[in-house]
Structures are given as structure tokens and as C-alpha cells.
């Protein structure tokens, strides 16, 4: 009875409930603390950005992924202007601890998962072209890998195209009602700071 809507594409976010993922999640949460220097990750974050649920390192990986998923095109808002990575991080705060660990595991796999392809360079150390290629491989990779990719992609693109600045570009005139009524639990950092 629900809309067939495919309206929950983001739900791939919980994908790491798949077997073995819980262990990966636990390992991932700590491994991100172990691998790579604080300075490397901090340098990837925009100045002044503070994570909500994720660690600084995890948020930095998320920023890097979002930058690849959303291209820079003239006239379109940049992913960083739309605050997509921060929004995903905030959205997590409205979900369970299990979902937090699942998503952290997604980021761990993205950052360190190259080892499964005998590529030992972390995602955040790759060039933009290499990052694109790594994501493309994940998209068509084995179950867990492609599920991680699907989760990241769906969340990123959903929130990006919820940004009103995108609407004229896709031929969408926006809502008919003039009232804006964000939910009480609102993950949009732009709106919260407006």
C-alpha cells in the first residue's frame, strides 16, 4: 500500500547488516583511527566543520566520496556548498547505534577496500580520476562493495537534488505550497543555520 516509490533508495545505508559486516563495522570504526594521520584527514575537511556522529576521519572520507559522486559543473551548486556530507552525518544522529556502525563500516570499506583489489592506496590519497575509477569498480563489484557504493550514492544524490538550487536545472518548479515546514528532526545544516 505504500507508494511503489522506490522512495526509500537510501535504505541501502543499512546494507551492512549483511553477514560479516558487523565485524567489519567494528573493525572499521577503530581501523579508521589507526590508519592514516590526523593531519591528512583534517586537511580534507573544510575549515570549521565538526562531525555529529562520524569521527573527523570518517567525515573526511565522506567528503571525498561526495566530491566524486557530485560533479562540479558551472551553474550548479557544489556538493560542499550544498553541505551534503555534513547532512548525511547529521541524518545518522536520528537513527540507531547499529545504523551508525553500519555506515562507519561503509566508509571504512571505501577508504581501505582497495586492498581487495591489491591496491593499497587509501581512497582519500587517490587522484580525482583514480577515485572515480575506484567508485566505478565498487559499483559493479562483489555484493558488499556494490552495496556500500549504492548506499553512498543514493544518499548523496538524494540530498543533493533536494537542494532548491538544483531544481531549475532539472526542470522542476518545486512545491506548490508556499509554507516550509521542516521536520522537527531536521538534518539539513543549511536550514538549521539559516
Amino acid at each position, binding site marked *: *500500500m505504500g507508494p*511503489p516509490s522506490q522512495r526509500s533508495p537510501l535504505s541501502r545505508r543499512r546494507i551492512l547488516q549483511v553477514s560479516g559486516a558487523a565485524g567489519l563495522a567494528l573493525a572499521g570504526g577503530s581501523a579508521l583511527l589507526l590508519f592514516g594521520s590526523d593531519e591528512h584527514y583534517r586537511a580534507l575537511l573544510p575549515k570549521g566543520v565538526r562531525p555529529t556522529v562520524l569521527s573527523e576521519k570518517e567525515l573526511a572520507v565522506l567528503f571525498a566520496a561526495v566530491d566524486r559522486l557530485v560533479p562540479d559543473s558551472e551553474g550548479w551548486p557544489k556538493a560542499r556548498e550544498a553541505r551534503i556530507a555534513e547532512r548525511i552525518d547529521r541524518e545518522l544522529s536520528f537513527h540507531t547505534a547499529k545504523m551508525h556502525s553500519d555506515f562507519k563500516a561503509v566508509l571504512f570499506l571505501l577508504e581501505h577496500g582497495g586492498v581487495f583489489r591489491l591496491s593499497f592506496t587509501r581512497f582519500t590519497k587517490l587522484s580525482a580520476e583514480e577515485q572515480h575509477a575506484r567508485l566505478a569498480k565498487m559499483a559493479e563489484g562483489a555484493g558488499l562493495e556494490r552495496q556500500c557504493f549504492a548506499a553512498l550514492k543514493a544518499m548523496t544524490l538524494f540530498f543533493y537534488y533536494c537542494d532548491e538550487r538544483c531544481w531549475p*536545472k532539472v526542470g522542476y518548479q518545486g512545491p506548490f505550497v508556499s509554507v516550509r515546514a521542516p521536520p522537527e528532526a531536521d538534518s539539513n545544516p543549511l536550514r538549521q543555520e539559516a
Partner: protein
Amino acid sequence: MDDALKERVLEYDRASRDYEETVDACVIGTGCGGAVVAKELARAGKSVLMLERGGFYLMDHGDFDQREDDMMARIDGGRGLHSSSDGQLALTYGNCVGGASVHYWADTWRTPKDRCEKWEREFGVEGHSYEELVPFFEQVERDLNVHAAEDIRLNRMNQLFDLGAKKAGYHTERVLQARKNCIGSGYCAQGCAYDAKQSQLVTHLPVALAAGARIFADCEAEQILIEGGRAIGVAARFIDRRTCKPSGRRARVRSKVVVVAAGGFNTAPLLMRSRMPDPSGQLGKNLMVNPVAQAFALFDEDIVMWRNIPAGTGVMDFRLARMDGGRYVEGGYLLHPTQLAPATLAALLPSFGKDHRALMERAHQIGGCIAWVDDVATGRATLDEEGHPVWHWEMAEQDELTIRDSLKKQATILLHGGAKEVIVPDAKGTRIRDLEELASIDRVDLGTMMFAAPHPSGMCRMGKDPSRSVVSCTGEAHSVKGLFVCDPSAFPTAVSVDPSETIMAFSYVAARHLLGEWESIAKG
């Protein structure tokens, strides 16, 4: 909604203490199943308290702002983010007063006669034959203003679907709609800002409230209280809508009857968490979901699929799978045009980066079809260490064949309708530009596609035999007196069409039984 009725709904911000309530009936869930039972019991003079996990949102409060992100967070279960354990299914269910009816497409179908017969034949379901349900169908259709979609309600995608299907030799039919004074805004899935969609929020719930029922919104049922083999009430907690976490306030309801209508995904987990005896071993099993397979298409004209109603037309002739000596031939789904708003479309289209951007620049020229697949696979639910449900579902071989066949039929309709290119949302973004290329669908890796799961059923299967079913033909649990299931969990299988009317009809049957046998049921 009338202010006096609104006062009968307690929300988290007014729940300033713990509550001890004693009522005749505690109804968990305010969707199609719960609303009907609550209305019927309240009108018969019973004291009724409904518990709803989600919030209370109204048109006249300006809550329906038509923004995809706001409304997904507000009215969808898991803020739209719940999936099956392997990520293949996106679970679509409601989390608000009115339940899934607030976000559904308003397609309204009677239970197909063959499905009633199957349930009677294979599961011993009595009292739910098509003929016995007809009076309730008629009641629902009157109350929800059910009518065939008018010409004016067909957007360009619906028109091209109709054209393409007819060119392909498929018979199309108008889909019955539960609407009144629809303006065709296209925001059905975000919750109707005009009260035109005849959801429970604007139909049965106001009647229930006017008859004396109350609702605790933002109130999550944690456990059914069971004592001496009968349900005696419900333990619940309020959720702070600002944080989505427990507020610290609780409700303890003592009742003569407990009606669980928490929806096809959540009723069984609640009963499992409540340690309901399950001698049949079927509780939490037999999950069917009507997975939604879809294909997109690029046209060289404006489609703007996000306006007007979603599915005013469809091909129904393939509803039942055609088999030949046990071998799948074709069918097993309904075909409709699809409707997605831009951000959801973006999340579902294949590719990323510049390729994806190129597609989105033509979003207004993208249309598509969906197939509601009558799945044969059966999933199940388990509880994690914190008692949260985990849903498991794996595609069966016949489902795979059905989905591929549906994608071919969708591509056929879209190409005949003028599509320049059909886009399958697999990881490769398979493209089909000509009918000659339909065979490429056989090579699509279905494991890289995501399927919405909008119509869960089966995890509290109804039947006469307590060794094979969870609830009896009255909806009462075989193993717990005074505990009724009134939602699609009780269906023995999926309905093969939108289940809302079936849910309401089944709830009428349960309500009539409850009222007819009230003294013996209430006193145990």
C-alpha cells in the same frame, strides 16, 4: 480536522508525564487496519486508545510541505532508510498517524477473487470469501470516494504508457483511485497537502475520534502484555520527535482487547519481542513484499512525471503468472507508469558524476514504468540484540524470471510509447534503444538493482489450523486470547494488487467478530 478532534490526539510535546490507561481496546497502529477497527469499536461505544509510533501531521497545520526530504523524514518508516538485511529491498512503510495511507498512491483494488479462493483452498481461511467481503468493499469504496481515474488526471507519462501498451497489443485499464477534489499536484508520496487523497487521516480516523477514540501519537508500543494466555495490555514509550529518541515518558495501557495493526513489517517483530507463544513456528516467516521492478526511459519531449497522479492507468492482464507444466512462461505482475520526484529519481538512476548529471539535466524528459511483482519468495524477520527488527528476503528463481519478463514488457511499452532509450537501473545502466535489444535484459545483474518493498504481508499468516498459522480466521491469535492482528501480516500470501482495500475489508471482518462476540472475548 476539527479542533475538538485534534484535542483527542496526544503528541510527544504534550506528553508531560507517564500515563496509566484502562480501556476496552488498545489498537496499535493508525493505518488502514487500525483505523477501521478503532472506528468500528468506538462507534459501538467501546473505549479505544490507539498508539501510533509516528507523528501527527495535518494539512491545516501546514505539515505537508511537498519537499521530498522533509516528508520522507516525517511520514516514512525509518525516515525512508530501512532495508532488508542484504540491501536489496527498500522497505516502504508509514510512520505517522494514518500510516502508509498518508504516502500511498491511492490505487484501490478489491481483493482478486482468485486470491480469496487460494487463501480458502490452501490455508483454510474462512469468512473472507470474495462474496463475504463485497459489503465491506462497497463500504470502503463509498467512504473513500473510489472512482476510476479521469482523463484529466493522466499526466504525459500515463498517456504515453497507454499509447505504448496499446501499440504493443496490451489491454489497459483505468486504475481506481481513492481521491476527492484532487488537483493533480503530484505529491501523493509526500502526503497530500490538500486532503484530496482519501487517506485514513481524512476518512476513518476522524470518524473514530468523533466517536470517542483517542490517539497517543509519537508513542511506540514496546511490548504486548500477556498474562495467563491472554493479552491484557500494552507497554509503550513516547518518542521525542526532535531527536527520534525516547523522551523518557511512558504509557502503560490495560485493555480487554489488544489489536495489533503496526503494519506488515512491524507487527510480527512486536509480537516476537513480546514473546508471544508460536506453536506453529510461522510467526515472523512467510514475508512477501510485492517487489517493485522498474525501467526508466528518455523521451524527446517533456514528460514531467512528478505532476498529476502517479498511476491512472495500467496493464492488469499479466497479474497472474502463466505457467506451462510447472515452467514459468510470463506474467505475475501489474504494470503501471511510474512517478518519482526529482531527488528520488536522482537516487535511483544509474551512474554517478558527469554521466549522472547528464541524465538529470534531462530529468523532465525522463519517464518510466513499474511492475508490482507478485513474489513467490518468502522472507522473514528476526530481532537484533537490541530488539530491533531485521528483515531478510532473497529473490526466488521464479521472481527473477518474473522481474526480467516485467522489464521486457516495460521496455516494450516505453519504446512503443516513443521512448528514445530505455534505462534499466542496474549497475551498468543497461540501455535499450530498440525492441531487438530486449534480450539484453536477460544479462542484467538483478543483484545490482534495488527493489522497493511497499506491500509486506504474511508474517502472522491467517488460517484455520493452529499448527500452520499464527492467527485464526477472525484475526485473533491462536495462542493468545484477546490479541488480534488487523493488518496485512495476517494475509496468507501477498494480495497481487494494492492491499489497502483488502486490509480494510479484513479489519471490518475482525471488528464485526469482536463486537459480535465481545462479551466472551473481553472476559476471556
